[in-house]
């Protein structure tokens, strides 16, 4: 079983490498317009550049003559480093990309935390009190369908171009979904846990902490999981438009577009996917899986 998985993984990797090689080869042989769509080497080049490392990866093979001058079109005319090998300027951790990732993660942590607190409180209230549900349920369901970037203009006008504005966009983009998912999940928890809790003497606060909270864990886990991905998307959308002193990952994407550096654009997109996937894979999926296996679900 394990060796079969390994074999499959190897096959997939090889085919992807082949596709990338063909892509790269096509660019180099047919002079694809690299300012429209980048070759893999451009993406790598841009990412390394964001880490403070200069390379020659982005240049076509024949672009460099003996004197080190470009002959064909050069991907990044600003970085003439031909024939000089890799150049590392300063510590990698102080370069643009790690700083931006750090900034974004900090904003994400703050925004997501606020979303979780608000979303759980309101989701619980909607589950517990019919009136709150009637009052807020339809509104939340509607607002949940609003793309998070659409909160940006309001944030700019109401709060200004600052950290608060970006926080607002992140929270608005995720907390409705957390509240709605939690409410729906709690509604699906079997009522038998409730009855059993009451029969065996769980009252008041303890009824909630000892019965309803653990019974709602699967709902909680999935609402956190979807809420996180909403928060991440909202933040990236917000950073793309907000230009603040502290550059986030979304800002790097905007910079890439402004300088026509399509390698950076795709590279930063790749980083965004990577961060989103890593959080889901190493944080939220294991959490959900653990809860589900404890409940004997999804096996």
């Amino acid at each position, binding site marked *: 079983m394990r060796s079969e998985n390994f074999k499959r993984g190897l096959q997939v990797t090889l085919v992807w490498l082949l596709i990338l090689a063909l892509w790269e080869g096509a660019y180099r042989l047919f002079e694809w317009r690299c300012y429209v769509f980048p070759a893999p080497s451009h993406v790598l080049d841009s990412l390394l550049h964001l880490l403070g490392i200069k390379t020659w990866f982005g240049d076509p093979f024949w672009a460099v003559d003996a004197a080190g001058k470009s002959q064909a079109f050069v991907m990044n005319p600003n970085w003439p480093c031909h024939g000089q090998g890799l150049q590392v300027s300063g510590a990698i951790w102080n370069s643009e990309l790690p700083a931006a990732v750090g900034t974004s993660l900090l904003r994400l942590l703050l925004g997501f935390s606020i979303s979780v607190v608000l979303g759980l409180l309101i989701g619980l209230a909607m589950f517990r009190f019919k009136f709150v549900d009637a009052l807020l349920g339809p509104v939340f369901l509607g607002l949940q369908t609003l793309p998070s970037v659409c909160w940006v203009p309001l944030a700019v006008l109401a709060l200004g171009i600052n950290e608060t504005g970006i926080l607002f966009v992140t929270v608005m983009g995720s907390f409705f979904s957390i509240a709605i998912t939690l409410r729906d999940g709690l509604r699906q928890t079997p009522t038998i846990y409730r*009855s*059993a809790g009451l*029969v065996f003497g769980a*009252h008041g606060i303890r009824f909630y902490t000892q019965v309803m909270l*653990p019974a709602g864990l699967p709902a909680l886990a999935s609402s956190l999981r979807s809420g996180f991905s909403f928060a991440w998307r909202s933040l990236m959308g917000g950073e793309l438009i907000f230009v603040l002193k502290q550059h986030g990952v979304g800002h790097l994407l905007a910079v890439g577009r402004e300088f026509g550096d399509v390698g950076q654009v795709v590279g930063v997109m790749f980083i965004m996917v990577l961060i989103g996937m890593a959080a889901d894979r190493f944080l939220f999926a294991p959490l959900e899986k653990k809860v589900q296996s404890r409940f004997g679900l999804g096996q």
Partner: protein
Amino acid sequence: MIQFLKKTFGGGSEAPATIGPRGRIEIKGICRQYPGADKPAMLDVNLTIEPGEFVVIVGPSGCGKSTLLSMVAGLAKPDKGQVFLDGKLITSPGPDRAMVFQEHGLFPWLTVSENVEFGLKMAGVHPDERRSASKKALELVHLSAHADKFIHQLSGGMRQRVAIARCLVMDPAVLLMDEPFAALDAQTRTMLHEQMQELYVEMKKTVIFVTHSVAEAVRLADRIIVMHANPGRVRRDFRLNLPHPRDFDASDVAYYMKTVRKEIDDEVNAQAGAARRLSEGVGNYEI
């Protein structure tokens, strides 16, 4: 070994009322009507259950037998009428009425022993006492080896035994069982019937047991209440003069069972016939 279960005993009906055995249930004039329904779901249900009696309630779907059990548990309220336990009006669930649910209702986030201890924990019993109580209860249902497992790791029959152990540690006045073995296979069910008999003989508590199955009723009951639907009310009240534990294959037991079962079957078939005429509703009984 089971001292904690023997704190009370049932049976002796001549015991004085003040210090008499616990577990006398009086159901008086219960009516229930669902909003929007033209007919009442239950109409004037009256029943008195003596301490230590093993009462099985049988009846078709919709006769209100499970609802009646919920009312004794305090989980449901009648529109009219009252339920008393040892002369006290039942208004809410309480630890003196432990219940085994149809789908066990055990908490999947707790281990087997934590599930068994849950009621004691809620009652504020010291952890050491809880542990020894759950150990004894699990011994009684032959599950000591599985104390640290989670519920999803157990078979259906084992889960119901845990659910029974969870009730036993409470030392309740009444044990309520809502179709507890309905979802199990025939072999497991027979095994649990035997275990149930042993437990009943040892603890002598009032048991109210709801089921679809007439065979199950005859195996377990001192008294069988047949209910009928539309509206739900008590139709017949059989008393079985068979000692516990019963050997289901012994000739006199078998004969007794056969006759009682025939009577109930006739009753049930008459009802089923009426039901069929009413709404093609057949097959409510598992015989």
